[in-house]
């Protein structure tokens, strides 16, 4: 892949993560395409030979622009108790690898995402590990996220809720 393109996509993913960790959710929505698909499949422990471990039908997140807007509007109210006080998240985005797709201006960005989440005065943060296979699109206004596909590396997830974005 062209090195500059890889660099630019990587920077885009870093700035997207920064928007989430700084809780600039409106900025974050602006980084998504209007036809964004936001998916997190449910994982089930299967044997090595099983045809799937990520459920073809079950989703933790199954969102589009409209439902993401609902989630953000919710967070903008004073009544999103799950985030009162706000989670302190840190998205460690690593191993960004970029590949072409059939669509000229769209690229597949694979990355690892390790999320550190701490709440209130608990000294025991939560850690989540996800494999991401995103699609990023080059637009006249710059890079946009056209698809977020992220899978937890756990089948029994150690989070009392997922009031954050991955």
């Amino acid at each position, binding site marked *: 892949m062209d090195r500059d393109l890889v660099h630019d996509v990587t920077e885009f993913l870093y700035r997207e993560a920064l928007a989430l960790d700084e809780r600039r959710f409106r900025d974050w929505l602006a980084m998504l395409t209007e036809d964004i698909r936001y998916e997190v499949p449910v994982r089930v422990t*299967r044997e090595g030979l099983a045809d799937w471990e990520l459920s073809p039908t079950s989703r933790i997140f199954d969102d589009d622009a409209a*439902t993401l807007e609902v989630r953000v509007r919710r967070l903008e109210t004073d009544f999103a108790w799950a985030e009162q006080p706000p989670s302190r998240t840190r998205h460690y985005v690593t191993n960004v690898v970029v590949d072409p797709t059939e669509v000229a201006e769209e690229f597949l960005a694979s990355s690892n995402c390790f999320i550190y989440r701490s709440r209130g005065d608990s000294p025991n943060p939560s850690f989540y590990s996800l494999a991401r296979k995103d699609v990023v699109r080059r637009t006249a206004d710059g890079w946009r996220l056209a698809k977020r596909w992220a899978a937890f590396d756990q089948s*029994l997830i150690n989070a009392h809720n997922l009031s954050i974005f991955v």
Partner: protein
Amino acid sequence: MTTRPDPTPLADWVASTREGIRDGRFPARAFNDADVHALEQERLFSKAWCFLAHESEIPSPGDYVTRYIANNNLIVVRDENGEVHANLNMCRHRGNVMCKAELGNASHFRCSYHGWTYKNSGELIGVPYMKEGYEGRLKRKEWGLVRVRVESYEGLLFGCLDPEAESLADYLGDFRFYLDLYLKQGAEGVEVHGPPDHWVAETDWKICAENFAGDGYHTPVAHQWGFNLGYFPSSGSTHSQGWAVHVPGKGHGIGLGHSPNFPPFGGFPDELVEDMRTSLSPEQVAVFEKTRTAVGTVFPNLSFLMQPFSLVPGEPGVRFVTMRLYHPAGPGRMEMYSWCLVPRGADQAYKDEAYRCYTLAFGQAGTFEQDDFENWTKVTRSAESTMVRDVDFPYIMGMESEPDPEFPGPGTALVPYVNDTNFRNLWSRWGDYLAGEA
């Protein structure tokens, strides 16, 4: 056996707690205490009927899921004859785990340690070195997987560790009338949309069980953002309308919330409604057609919620049903299983929209679920404080109310929907078990 908690130290506490329930009090301590947890494992979960799976999760011979009762991992499997078994997922030779997946299909299970092999029904059929090692003296039929009782109602599979326990039918009793609302959506009934969400939370299972036994009281505040964004037709003021119904002596209870000028069976697809008017009894139709929100708990820890919901606030939306199991995983800790049930008879588009509504509202990332678990986890945290040992919570709503004489269904129905009566019934049954009197 010392891993069996000596009940004595708690006996007085259990007695005074049962008395308190009658008087409309329940102790904070119950929601996060190591001894209470141990006693529940011993007296409740080893005797009650515990939910295992929905039949649609294991439709074909050899299909299995692994689930828990207390901390016992069970293989819930459909054998080659279509019969469902629940066997302890442990090899009888040296205790290895037989089946390491949560879901799959197998005709046999072969142990990875020394190779003992069992039919999926649990029967031991293969023992290496039977001649050289055992000189043929090992009797295979004595060493099958340890079995657990299984019974079902309308696709719900339950297990029970107590051979003496009453039948599932008697255990559920009149609550089956209300379960049908969730399970008989049309002649073909329901199926799971897929595997359940599954997560852990530092939450006591009882807090969830109580909330889903009809806690209409929390909705306007705990889910205030939803009213704020226009998700609810009812306002806080009209929200209290509806019935709180419980099955006395069984612990089961359900809240049936109404809304001003809500269309009969509103939110169901028309063809389903036709079905239901025939498949359900007249009494059921009379109760359910007015019901906007139905949220109920099968004692001890299985709950259901049905309500209309839309992906974008203000639209009519569709009905989704979630079924959830609150599996205790230690004092003040649980594993949540959350399924979405869809009507088998509905078209795929309806099923998929219902499922998307479920994921937006409930499930681990659901916008309503999020706030519930935040509150529940905080309650659990408070309950372990040393200062709350002698603190009771008030459970007096509806203590002086008369049952609604007009109510067409079984059990005891009270108005308003906002009520503690179902909870007193829930905890008094819990008290029976902890006292060893169930």
